[in-house]
């Protein structure tokens, strides 16, 4: 199956153009930046440092954030335009790939911004861990792909959206469990002096997903 890059690029461009035009997007960015900095402050308390707890909390937050994000962003908002876009002859594969890329690129851009913000506010020396990095990125990619494809398959009715939850949770549970175990091990493997980088890693992802979720929740 041949998929042209041009329509994917055009769709991505228009989707990001719309994202940055939402006033609520800017307002919620500010709100969530403030909240995450507060959480980071709490997380850095030495008495609370436990890899297993942080890992568990992080993936639970991710699970609930993603649920709302995908139901709102890729279902109700895009449903009307999808039909008309397909009548330009672009093909459903290009539309699907553009939706997945949109969510992933959005995530990566916000992650980059968030980690920079964290480093500035806490004068943190952030240490890169390839194990944690790939665990989080691959888990995010799995969630984005699975949820997008499920929504494409189930969209069109309110029943479909409800069914998404029923299908999404069992499908994602193994991914979340593996991600939780891997994250916990990564966190436990490093010494206390290196812990800051891992905490930052966890929270910049949390911030990113929250940022993606927030404008959509504030729209209605």
């Amino acid at each position, binding site marked *: 199956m041949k998929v042209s890059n*041009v*329509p994917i690029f*055009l*769709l991505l461009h*228009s989707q990001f*153009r*719309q994202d940055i*035009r*939402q006033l609520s997007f800017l307002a919620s960015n500010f709100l969530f930046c403030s909240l995450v900095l507060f959480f980071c402050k709490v997380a850095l308390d030495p008495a609370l440092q436990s890899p297993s707890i942080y890992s568990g909390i992080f993936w639970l937050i991710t699970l609930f954030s993603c649920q709302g994000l995908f139901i709102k962003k890729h279902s109700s908002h895009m449903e*009307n*335009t999808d*039909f*008309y*876009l*397909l*009548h*330009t*002859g*672009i*093909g*459903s594969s290009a539309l699907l790939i553009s939706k997945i890329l949109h969510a992933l690129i959005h995530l990566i851009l916000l992650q980059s911004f968030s980690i920079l913000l964290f480093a500035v506010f806490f004068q943190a020396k952030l240490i890169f861990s390839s194990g944690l990095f790939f665990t989080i990125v691959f888990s995010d990619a799995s969630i984005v792909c699975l949820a997008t494809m499920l929504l494409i398959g189930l969209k069109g009715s309110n029943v479909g959206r409800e069914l998404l939850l029923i299908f999404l949770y069992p499908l994602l549970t193994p991914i979340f469990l593996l991600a939780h175990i891997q994250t916990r091990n990564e966190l436990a493997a490093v010494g206390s002096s290196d812990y800051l980088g891992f905490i930052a890693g966890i929270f910049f992802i949390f911030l990113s997903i929250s940022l993606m979720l927030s404008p959509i929740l504030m729209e209605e």
Partner: protein
Amino acid sequence: MITLDRVSHDFQNRNVISNVSLSIEKNGLCCIGANGTGKTTLLKIISGKLKPMKGTVHYQDPGYDARNEKGKRGIGVCFNDIGLFPLLSPRENLRLFAKLGKLSDIPDHSLKDIQDFRIETILDQKTHLLSSGELQKLALIRSWILQPKVLILDEPSNFLDQESKSILLHRLEAEKTRKTLMILASHDSDFISQIDLPILSTDKLHQGLSS
């Protein structure tokens, strides 16, 4: 030519279309009928937006076969949900649809439509701030921007003032000259009566139809 073969569709046991067989040829047809008689459902089935519960739709030319992805490009559509991006301007919306349809920019014939409908001044505003009539004009222009072989318009005269209706009628005449197969639905009998196309009354679609 588009042929419907014993097509049936219902919504939660409410029979909207029952065993309808129909051939649409030459310039197309106008569906007219009261609310809830299945006009929109019929158009949605022909455009591929809705899959009929029973029966099949045959498209003579693969260039406008709604069952395949490339064929969809040959069908221009306009339904009540409009389907424009609210946070893009009308110019950006039309440019996006034109470029996705492999045109370099908004084509000249659409620029002329913009002038004819007198909406040049709103081209750079946000689409979600436009009036219903302005949105309808944009959706109509978008529907034929790629010069499709088949044009499916559901209630095209909705929200339009008298002058805009005349411009639309003139535009539809031009499409007829271009040999476009037009399938229209409306409850506006005055408007429909001014279009020189065969008329299909949808009042008995739920009882079955063969023509």
